[in-house]
């Protein structure tokens, strides 16, 4: 190994732009050394940028990282090289010579503001890559209905929402296998379907009870004491809000205003609305549905 | 159903108006049939039907037919009060379907009081 340190170079390379690499780069640069920070991803940040909280302090990940990102961006002695792999390392300590393979990205980094518009407009990025070659078999209890729903909506503009809504109302939830099937049939990536399915409060990806008890938590109902109704339902059904009874009969849910403010506080079971509900009425409402159970 | 043209839509509107005229609140005449126990016993139901037939036949959409309680003159039932715009109400007594025909013609259609069946002009106040 070449131990000739007579021609030391005042620069260092940090490989990997995660939180550790970023801190290292900053520390080096602060000590007056020119730093090359390289990463094979299109941007620095690493895994931490995908985290919400960090263990064990539950600190916000972005809050820790963001100042460092800014500092690196502004530091005159740090040069960030992204989308690059190391090909070859020559030389020795104090005097390395490194060859990088920098991939093309066709975006001018100097002028890009990172608005993301190119991503959403890219005609090829949203197309699903057929990973699963064989056709997904639906469970027999869902099969007929799901196929019918998907077939009848497939060719509409924006078919995803109507399909999910109809399946959700047919089974009270979205069975996982069905989502795979929808993905295969419509071409939406499964990740996207899951994102939609978990965004809306009307959808559920876990099975729910036969009767969904929606306690209105709109302002009017709240002012008129719907919170106590919720507690009473919770006591009687022995479940917490957003949970389902073990016999799969009831799911208790808080809902954002069902528009029956004149009858506050209101409760909606299935599509039936009960108005001016008092704590005393709660057992009666539930007993109405017991019979049909 | 065939698609409508503008003229057909207008025709439809005229037709449909007949269906909801009771709610429009534009009335020129008002007939009140008194239907207390005494009136009903004396045959006020027939009188109501008779008036309804008349209204239907005439095609008038500005005549309101309502019922009310006993007018107090039980011996002369069936009775009815007829009122047209800007004139005092007139009470008619001892009605029969034939008399109804005449009263409707002279009072509602022509605007003259059918004096031979009337007992009085004006209405008692209150109640």
């Amino acid at each position, binding site marked *: 190994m070449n131990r000739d340190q007579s021609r030391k170079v005042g620069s260092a390379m940090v490989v990997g732009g995660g939180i550790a690499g970023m801190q290292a780069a900053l520390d080096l640069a602060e000590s007056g050394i020119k730093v090359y920070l390289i990463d094979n991803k299109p941007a620095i940040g690493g895994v931490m940028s995908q985290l919400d909280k960090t263990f064990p302090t539950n600190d916000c990940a972005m809050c820790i990282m963001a100042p460092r990102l800014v500092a690196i961006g502004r530091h005159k002695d740090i040069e960030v090289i992204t989308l690059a792999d190391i090909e070859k390392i020559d030389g020795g300590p104090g005097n390395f010579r490194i060859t990088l393979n920098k991939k093309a990205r066709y975006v001018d980094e100097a002028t890009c503001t990172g608005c993301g518009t190119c991503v959403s407009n890219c005609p090829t990025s949203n197309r699903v890559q057929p990973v699963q070659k064989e056709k997904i078999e639906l469970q027999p209890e869902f099969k007929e209905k799901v196929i019918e729903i998907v077939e009848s909506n497939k060719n509409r503009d924006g078919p995803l929402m109507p399909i999910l809504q109809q399946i959700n109302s047919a089974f009270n939830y979205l069975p996982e296998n069905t989502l795979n099937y929808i993905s295969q049939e419509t071409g939406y990536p499964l990740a996207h379907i899951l994102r939609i399915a978990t965004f809306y409060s009307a959808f559920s990806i876990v099975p729910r009870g036969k009767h969904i008890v929606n306690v209105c938590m709109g*302002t009017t109902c709240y002012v008129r004491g719907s919170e106590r109704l919720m507690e009473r339902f919770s006591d009687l059904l022995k479940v917490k809000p957003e949970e389902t009874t073990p016999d799969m009969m009831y799911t208790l849910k808080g809902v954002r205003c069902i528009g029956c403010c004149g009858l506050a506080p209101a409760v909606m079971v299935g599509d039936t609305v009960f108005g001016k509900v008092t704590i005393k009425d709660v057992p009666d409402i539930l007993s109405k549905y017991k019979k049909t159970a | 159903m065939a*698609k409508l043209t503008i003229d057909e839509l207008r025709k439809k509107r005229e037709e449909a108006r007949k269906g909801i005229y009771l709610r429009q*609140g534009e009335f020129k005449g008002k007939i009140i*049939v008194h*239907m*207390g126990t005494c009136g009903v016993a004396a045959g006020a139901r027939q009188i109501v039907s008779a008036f309804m037939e008349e209204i239907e036949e005439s095609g008038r959409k500005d005549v*309101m037919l309502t019922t009310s309680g006993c007018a107090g003159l039980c011996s002369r039932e069936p009775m009815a009060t007829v009122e047209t715009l800007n004139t005092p109400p007139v009470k008619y007594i001892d009605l029969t379907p034939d008399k109804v025909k005449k009263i409707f013609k002279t009072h509602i259609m022509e605007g003259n009081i059918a004096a031979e069946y009337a007992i009085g002009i004006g209405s008692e106040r209150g109640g």
Partner: protein
Amino acid sequence: MAVRRIDLMLCTGTGCVAGGAFRIKDTIENEITKYGLQNEVSVVITGCNGSCGQGPLMVVQPDGIFYGWLKPEDIPFLVQEHFLKGRPVKRLMFVPLERKEPVPLMSNIPFFQKQMLIVLRNKGIIDPEKIDEYIARDGYTAIEKVLPLMKPDEVIEEIMRSGLRGRGGAGFPTGRKWKVCSDERKFPKYIIGNCDEGDPGAYMDRSLFESDPHSVIEGMTIAAYAIGASRGYIYVRTEYPLAIRRMQIALSQARDYGLLGKKILGSDFDFDVEIREGSGAFVCGEETSLIHSIEGKSPEPRQRPPFPAQIGIWGCPTVINNVETLATVPVIINRGADWFSKIGTATSKGTKIFSLVGKINNTGLIEVPMGIALREIIYEIGGGIPKNKKFKAVQTGGPSGGCIPNNLIGLPIDYESLTKSGSMMGSGGMIVMDEDTCMVDVAKFFIQFTNDESCGKCTACRDGSEALLEVLTRISEGEGKEGDVEFLEELGLAIKDASMCGLGTTLPNPILSTVRYFKDEYEAHIREKQCPARVCKKLIKYYVDPDRCVGCLLCVKTCPVSAIKGELKYIHIIDQSLCTKCGQCLEICPPRIAAVTKLTGKEARELQSLPGPIPVAEWKKTKSASKGDFRFTPYREETDREHRGDNEVP
């Protein structure tokens, strides 16, 4: 068409249906048939009448007699007396609170008197499931006028001159929006009716769909003609099943008549509408987010400009109007922009529907001219606050709005004055609050709402609301610190600046307005650790007043956690260590006894419960013997002591 004598306008809005309106309809029909009146009397089901507090209700036409709070068992008597014998039944009529006499005529009820119906012109008059009845009430005359006689530009010009502004909340001039879209040269274009009425406490759009769906269809058709669109969507909340059903019926009827579809009314204009449902996400009311939702993308708002009128759904120019705005359009076309612009104030024209709800006597939907004073709405139309409580504030604009306090009760209601007072028009919810409402709790409620509904795209909104909620929760639990209020204000203003869509920029409003007008309440929570309205659970205690308790066991049986100890004729005692403060004991205690009370602040901290069960009679005796200064050994709970160790009993 056969002549009828009486039309019974039975309200079947969601509210009245919940009260059993369809059961009443069946009973009436049975009774009518029993007396052979079926050819003379017809039962017409109408959409929401607006006076939802009186439901189920019915208006008898042509007399205009108003019956409220109907029950099936009253019907046989009513049919016999009124429809057969012609004697209106006083017992079932509406009795205003300030009067003893019932008011028979709908037109004399103050709730209806003060209103001015433009959008809701057909409410309670037509059967929403019959297109003929809408046509009879001059329905589709506007299309009749527009299609052959007016050029698209003339329609836009007319709407611009009328001064109509968006009824969804922001109040953008409708004509201008149409103009921008019609100037775009990209085709096809789209129109979207926004009925994603997410604001809790507002339900005018639902009511509009339930009572007069065709007026929305007509308005949409005119808008489509004006901007050159051939397709339309109606985006409606899935929480409104009845509204969706009625709109579907209306759409298929309009298609049957050729009022939607190809070559409408023999012209060259094609237009059709499709219903899309939301799925319970508040942010979808925001226009760009709504578009994403229909497209099946993740429903997050995007940066504007470009506005949807330039680049909207499927990348095409799109006008998004609130359905209330659209329902106003036919009336403007029929009666002219000049007539419309005479109603209202200088900047806000026409009428607006409000849902007047909360702690108010006459709850319901009201349509009033812009510029009406808040006082008129609350005291004359609304009939004041129940149980003679004091009016405290009215919350307008939903989670984006603010609270308007008592001293601004003369405020004229229009877009500008509401914004100036720190609130906003919003979709028109008016939630009245009385002295029993805690403003800190209300602010917390709304921030909880927006925190839940924030889509998570902008940090300011997502994390900012979280931080606001944390501080508010702290305050409401009696852990508030000096400086918290200032922090709330500062952070609130920062969120306003840094968020992208309407949800984020308005989310601090409930805090900012309550801090502005009710700072003393915040300070009471922080300094005195007391909740003046006795709402915040951590700051109150339930207490059975021994002087009033009769030992009836009602509260003992009701308590879900068995925290109340007592036997018959013994004074009941609440075990504070078990009490979950659910308030059921207070509700169950008969009003003439009213032994259960709530304590807060110092009172609650120094509460001394009775040491053990004492018979009611004995308590009265000892009390009179000791002339009132009888003292019990204080009874303190373990958990309680931990909380305030410094506050040891001497």
